[in-house]
């Protein structure tokens, strides 16, 4: 259910068309050997650290499945992509792969037999992994416990995405970065951060918007994007839309613990990234990521004039609105579940933790909703998604759970209908934020679905039959567009 969507963090959600079977290797990386050694020790333990940084297990382990044995299912508009067994099983895993073959799969998305992975596997990012780190990763994966079984579910894609060679053209155009090289304009720490951000941690996968072909739009590098309904925020150094107003300590706390007081909390795919990957990183690597993010050129979100976390008014709520009194216990009103009063629903579903006035708990344990990035954001997505999915996260400072409230995800017998979720989100943003949510019931499934699938994906089958000639023209146009955007990117980054 919901885990499926949470995990598809990388490409999956975003890339309906292109989901690699080898999911997470991307992160593996290029880590600076020295730092990585500090963090890990020998080759295998360094490889383990890198595999965590790359979040391999998140996608290559099925729910309740054996580690790295694959079977995690990405459900996408083009069909199902299932992650593969990357244990050293000779028959079902990668036990027969040489280091070169391993590196090629991780960096180029090509298996030893020549078949192409789907970019659910973030190989365009993992391409940045250095040779030294690749060696460590290989060493680590050689000694993972082999699982001699194939995932019980098989990848099945709709036409035309199931055609052999489909991914080859995409790879030619979009997956062509090489191993990371130090940027002379950056210092050693910033370079280390850049290596992690662009390589193993594959931040761009979610935080850079995608173009019509589901490749990252590098002209908007780290400017924020929608992932599976969640808004992955702008990580540029912009003071209003990005991280420019955050202190180093706040960014570091967020990456390690999943939350930064008065700023934001990680939910959805980012909570997964914290849980499975980022909270394991060394303080030095966290600091390096922070240092590098400071250097990312600012991009302002159009129309935004105030940071999301700076929005909020702490003011007492009128208690008579939340304590209207009840009918008698033997009357239908006592069991009726159709109330759509946002104030009353907020008070009963949210206020036990977030406070009647949205102030959070007195000791900061539960986040305030005023001065909260999710509530003050231009779009209400993350408020809605937190209600729909809940929050499930493990950071360096412990576990955090907010229960889910949608019918399909709730586990504490606490369902809100789409209309009720809309009312609560409207109340929360109006009372504690900037009133950005003007939602109706119909908006909720739309937000959950992450908006409509890209035109190209929806119309792929039709396009296919339009003919080779048109396709060629389209491909030429794509190449042209990509080349141009790359130029912009190199100018910008």
């Amino acid at each position, binding site marked *: 259910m919901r885990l499926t969507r949470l995990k598809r963090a990388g490409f999956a959600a975003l890339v309906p068309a292109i989901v690699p079977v080898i999911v997470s290797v991307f992160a593996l990386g290029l880590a600076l050997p020295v730092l990585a050694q500090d963090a890990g020790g020998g080759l295998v333990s360094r490889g383990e650290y890198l595999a965590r940084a790359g979040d391999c297990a998140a996608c290559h382990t099925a729910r309740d499945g054996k580690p790295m044995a694959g079977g995690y299912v990405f459900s996408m508009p083009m069909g199902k992509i299932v992650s593969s067994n990357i244990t050293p099983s000779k028959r079902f895993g990668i036990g027969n792969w040489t280091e070169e073959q391993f590196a090629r799969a991780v960096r180029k998305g090509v298996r030893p037999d020549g078949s192409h992975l789907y970019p659910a596997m973030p190989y365009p990012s993992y391409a940045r992994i250095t040779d030294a780190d690749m060696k460590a990763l290989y060493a680590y994966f050689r000694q993972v416990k082999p699982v001699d079984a194939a995932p019980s579910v098989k990848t099945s894609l709709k036409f035309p995405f199931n055609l052999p060679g489909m991914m080859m053209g995409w790879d030619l155009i979009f997956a062509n970065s090489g191993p990371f090289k130090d940027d002379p304009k950056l210092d050693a720490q910033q370079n280390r951060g850049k290596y992690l951000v662009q390589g193993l941690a594959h931040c761009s996968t979610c935080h850079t918007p995608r173009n019509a072909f589901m490749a990252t739009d590098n002209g908007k590098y780290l400017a924020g994007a929608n992932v599976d309904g969640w808004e992955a925020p702008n990580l540029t150094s912009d003071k209003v839309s990005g991280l420019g107003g955050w202190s180093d300590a706040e960014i570091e706390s967020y990456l390690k613990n999943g939350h930064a007081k008065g700023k934001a909390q990680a939910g959805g795919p980012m909570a997964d990234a914290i849980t499975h990957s980022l909270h394991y990183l060394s303080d030095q690597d966290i600091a390096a990521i922070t240092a590098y993010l400071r250097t990312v050129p600012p991009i302002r979100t159009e129309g935004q004039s105030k940071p999301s976390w700076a929005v909020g008014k702490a003011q007492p709520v009128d208690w008579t609105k939340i304590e209207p009194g009840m009918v008698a216990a033997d009357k239908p009103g006592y069991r009726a579940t159709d109330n759509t009063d946002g104030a009353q629903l907020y008070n*009963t579903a949210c206020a036990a933790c977030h406070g009647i006035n949205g102030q959070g708990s007195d000791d900061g344990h539960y986040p305030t909703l005023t001065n909260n990035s999710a509530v003050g954001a231009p779009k209400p997505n993350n408020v809605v998604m937190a209600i729909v999915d809940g929050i*499930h996260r493990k950071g360096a400072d412990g576990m955090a759970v907010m229960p889910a409230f949608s019918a399909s995800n709730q586990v504490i017998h*606490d369902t809100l209908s789409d209309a009720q979720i809309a009312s609560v989100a409207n109340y929360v943003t109006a009372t504690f934020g900037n009133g950005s949510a003007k939602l109706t019931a119909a908006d909720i499934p739309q937000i959950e679905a992450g908006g409509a699938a890209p035109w190209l994906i929806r119309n792929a089958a039709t396009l296919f039959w339009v003919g080779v000639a048109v396709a060629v023209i389209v491909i030429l146009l794509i190449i042209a567009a990509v080349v141009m955007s790359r130029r912009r990117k190199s100018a910008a980054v």
Partner: protein
Amino acid sequence: MAQDFDADVIVVGSGAVGSNAAYELARQGKSVILLEAGPSVPRWKILMNFRNSGRHYDHNDPYPNNPWAPTSYQPGYLQNTGSFEMMPGMLKLVGGTTWHWGGATWRYIPNDFKLNSLYGKGRDWPIGYDDLEPYYTRAEYQLGISGGDGEDQSGTHKGQAYPRRSKPYPINAEKFTYNAQKMHDALGTQDYAMCTEPTVRIHKPWDGRPACEGNNNCDQVCPIGTLYNGSIHADKAVRAGARLITEAVVTRIEVGDGKKVRSVSYMTPEGKETKLTAKVFVLAAHSFETAKLMMMNEVGNSSDMVGRNLMDHIGIGMDLMAGEDAMWSGRGPVQQLTIMNWRDGDFRKEHSANKTALANGNPQISLAEAAINEGLMGKELDARIMRDSARYQFVYSFLEMLPSPANRIQPNPAWKDSLGNPGIKIHFDVDDYVKAGAVVAREMYQDMAKRMGGTIAKIHGFENHDHLMGTLIMGADAKDSVVNHEGRSWDHDNLFVASVGVIPAAGVVNPTLTAVALAIRSADVIAKEV
């Protein structure tokens, strides 16, 4: 074959026990129908009802009192004819009565299963601790329980972990509350056998439930879903493929060839009747309603034991004004520190055992009410409320009850709900075994008060604690028990009972975990047969 039945298994009752049976069977691929007399009400609605009623002292109050399936406090629904007024709080909705409970989930200790052989009192179980241990473990992992792995819970195995466990608790024990720690320190481990109460109110997240934040509202409704209740497994059963039918009051049980139960029929609130067939039936409508249903239909009662042997943990308690002025009941867990000095020992030949514990509910409204009635006003009133709130501690004990056929419930046709179904008549007396045990508990109260430098404001008389065992008693002999060790009716091969009502020896610990463990055990038996 399957087409001949509406389901492989029909489970009647969606409380903690029935829902766990339904989930186990659905998870193992069986087709399951789960019938619930009450409605399905989301948590937020129950909380809304709670916070918008002035009747917080009535723990049933936030829950719908359905005219067709009333709560136990509907006037007339329970009628007592004995010397003791037995008025347990029972609910009718998806998830059942565990919507309001302290969340205590103890295991019985091995000697509890052999009460009669060891001490010559009451009855033995037809199984032993070792038979149930694996199911205790499964139940603990289903419910998500926090407990102290290294602790002695028996009071007789000082310094050891006891009883034996095949797996650690899913979640470790939390720190004591401030007042519990103070009490613990004042009593001292030399003379007092103290341990942490195992609880489904968890201090770390589990299975999508958040960690406890100390709302101190377990006995009314947990606002955040930390405290487990049966609705969690009702929902899990549905996700595993079970069909849940709510507002379905089962009234009729039909027996066919070979004394097998053929069908059950339920009524909607409007009185429409629907018959459902299955290969196996599990009655899990709690102790009273299950017994009532069996008696209404003259099913499974060849022993004449259905509805008899009613045992509760009849208890006493004391209002203690502690010497220290910062004790403040009402912070965090409502139950936690437990005293097991009198859980087990040869004294059980003479008087009942007891479990004694510190209750930590918020007493302030009651304290304020007393002060206002006394005539205090202004600064004096405020000072009294603050002084009493800072010191008041409630200590209570469960006493072990023995099964007596004379303590019983029966359908009461003199009272009818909106569908014309009968109420419940109760006859209950407290026996000398319990009375003798209460003397011992009261002596301990005096000692506790002394050690805590406090004064006893009041000792409460016998009160029921809603642990309704014995009415569906399990045994080794068809002549004097209702079900066998599998929970299977002696009279009908395909009829099982899953309820605290099957428990034949009450011990002194809260029985829900044991009933869930037994239900999972029954489900395994059933799964092999359908």
